[in-house]
């Protein structure tokens, strides 16, 4: 790493310390810079080109979308209007929003106090409960689908998204796990100080811990939003038979069936479903990256 040439060196030519040895290492640095950046560029293109092709196809005419052309001969932004006309996308958008926003709200209400108790209170059985929560986090969602479906069917809530939303108001194992890890990063001296000032657990949590872990809370809320927004299995299981309750993901999966070979419309719908998530990422990129790295490094 020590031999890497910074762009500033390249620009200024680094003429301050002339000498054959230095020049040689500098040239090697430039070669390396070029190699690394061209590989990175190729990788970046590989990741983003599929999205570009999807977007380009979304603008093609019906006829051209059936050819092997990569670039639209004429641009048809009306495809997007057509997508909204043929499918009640706004309704699906509303359902997706309801599912995701209520899930995040419920998750925060239930997971914040639980994570506090697991990270910052001392009580018998804490380790055991924490291990159970980790175990619950690792259960594949399909494993419990049969008994849970039967449970919700008895409550006459199948056919709606409520079986997916309501549990968040009690437990979301992954969020509790991650929030606990965030709460542990706050130095104990802050909590001691709050205690000296007469704060109880609730005030310590609300006045000290939450403000200090705001970035972590933002990241966890984003994860929860993304997970529910992208969820396909849950809505398929509970709302698959009831198109009024479909989410965007669920509706998109059956879109192509209804529009047999119209790749342009299908891709336009795909863009519409992807766009909100990408916008969210652009707005909250820092929180995303911080949250992701935290999962892996500390998890």
């Amino acid at each position, binding site marked *: 790493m020590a031999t890497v040439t910074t762009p500033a060196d390249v620009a200024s030519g680094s003429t301050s310390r002339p000498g054959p040895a230095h020049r040689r290492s500098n040239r090697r640095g430039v070669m390396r810079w070029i190699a690394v950046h061209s590989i990175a560029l190729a990788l970046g293109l590989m990741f983003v080109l599929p999205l570009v092709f999807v977007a380009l196809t979304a603008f093609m005419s019906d006829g051209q979308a059936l050819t092997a052309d990569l670039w639209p001969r004429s641009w048809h932004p009306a495809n997007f209007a057509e997508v909204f006309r043929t499918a009640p996308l706004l309704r699906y958008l509303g359902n997706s929003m309801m599912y995701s926003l209520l899930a995040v709200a419920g998750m925060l209400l239930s997971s914040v106090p639980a994570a506090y108790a697991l990270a910052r209170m001392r009580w018998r059985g804490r380790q055991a409960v924490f291990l159970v929560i980790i175990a619950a986090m*690792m259960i594949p969602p399909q494993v419990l689908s049969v008994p849970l479906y039967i449970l919700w*069917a008895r409550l006459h809530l199948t056919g709606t998204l409520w079986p997916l939303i309501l549990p968040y108001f009690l437990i979301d194992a992954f969020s509790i796990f991650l929030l606990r890890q965030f709460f542990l990063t706050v130095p104990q001296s802050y909590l*001691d100080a709050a205690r000296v000032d007469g704060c109880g657990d609730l005030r310590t949590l609300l006045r000290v811990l939450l403000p200090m872990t705001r970035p972590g809370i933002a990241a966890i809320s984003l994860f929860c939003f993304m997970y529910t927004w992208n969820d396909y299995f849950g809505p398929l299981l509970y709302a698959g038979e009831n198109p009024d309750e479909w989410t965007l993901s669920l509706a998109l999966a059956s879109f192509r069936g209804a529009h047999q070979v119209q790749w342009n419309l299908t891709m336009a719908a795909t863009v519409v479903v992807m766009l909100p998530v990408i916008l969210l990422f652009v707005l909250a990129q820092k929180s995303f990256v911080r949250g992701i790295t935290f999962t892996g490094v500390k998890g």
Partner: protein
Amino acid sequence: MTAAPRTTHVAGSTFTRWIRPRPGHWIRPLAFMAPALAGLALFVAYPLLALVYYSFTRYDLLNTPVWVGLRNYVFLLWGDPLARKAAFNTVWLVVIITVLRLVFATGVAAVLVRVRNGAGLFRTLIYLPALAPPVAATLAFTFLFNPGTGPVNTVLSWFGVSGPLWFSDPAWAKPALTLLTLWASGELIIIIMAGMLDVPGELYEAASLDGAGSVRRFWHVTLPAITPVLVFGVINSIILGLQYFTQAVVAASVASGSADIAGSRRAIGYPDNSTLTFPVWLYQQGFHYYNMGYASAMSIALFVVSTVFTVFFVHRLRRASHAEEVA
């Protein structure tokens, strides 16, 4: 974390001595934990017990469950060729996805940490596909890889290669799904990248002084240092593979041209059951054929396998936190 729970987080604090758990101390934690404990009971413990019970019955949601003993398990292990096929497909995906995802993500991360200009831009480009909803990403891939007019086969034809039928060929459907999963592995790439950036620079300098080239530095310094992150990646990928559902169902539905909602009877597993994963077959048995008892037995099988990996994960977590305490 596990060694000395009472003092772990207050080490060095003078409060340790005089804030002691008093009698009745459990009331406050209980109040904070109440929703989560109720949730564990209602949405984890109860369904698990019910699952075990249903797995010994024949139940179609309408009539009362009939006790059939071990018949569901016997059928699962010896009587159901499609369950075997589904288990094979899932194991295939778990193995291939885990290996390729780790190698690929480590390789990309190794390039990205060396980027000096536009690092943020590259990171964003590589992470974008991971954000796309799986259904949208799968639709995009079925279009990109569609054999007739898809951009992938078009580009291949420029080089004189006639591309395979991808999602319509039993031999190529799983490899196509694997490519889709690699394309969306930006999250793992960023995690590994963060691990690489955490490696202390002195280690590299010491290795350089000892005359290690960049390949040997990567092999003997970087890889050992990021092993915990790689272990996380392995477990994460295994869990991902065991749950593989959405992409398989959507790809099968779109490639088969089925006019039904994805997950319909005809489209599932298309082509030729090559995308029939274990969770897909479980879903099909439970929620299209309403064989709740048999689906429960399948769930138990999936649960047992994933629990093995969970135990491994928890074990690693405990070891890691022990190491933190010692340090």
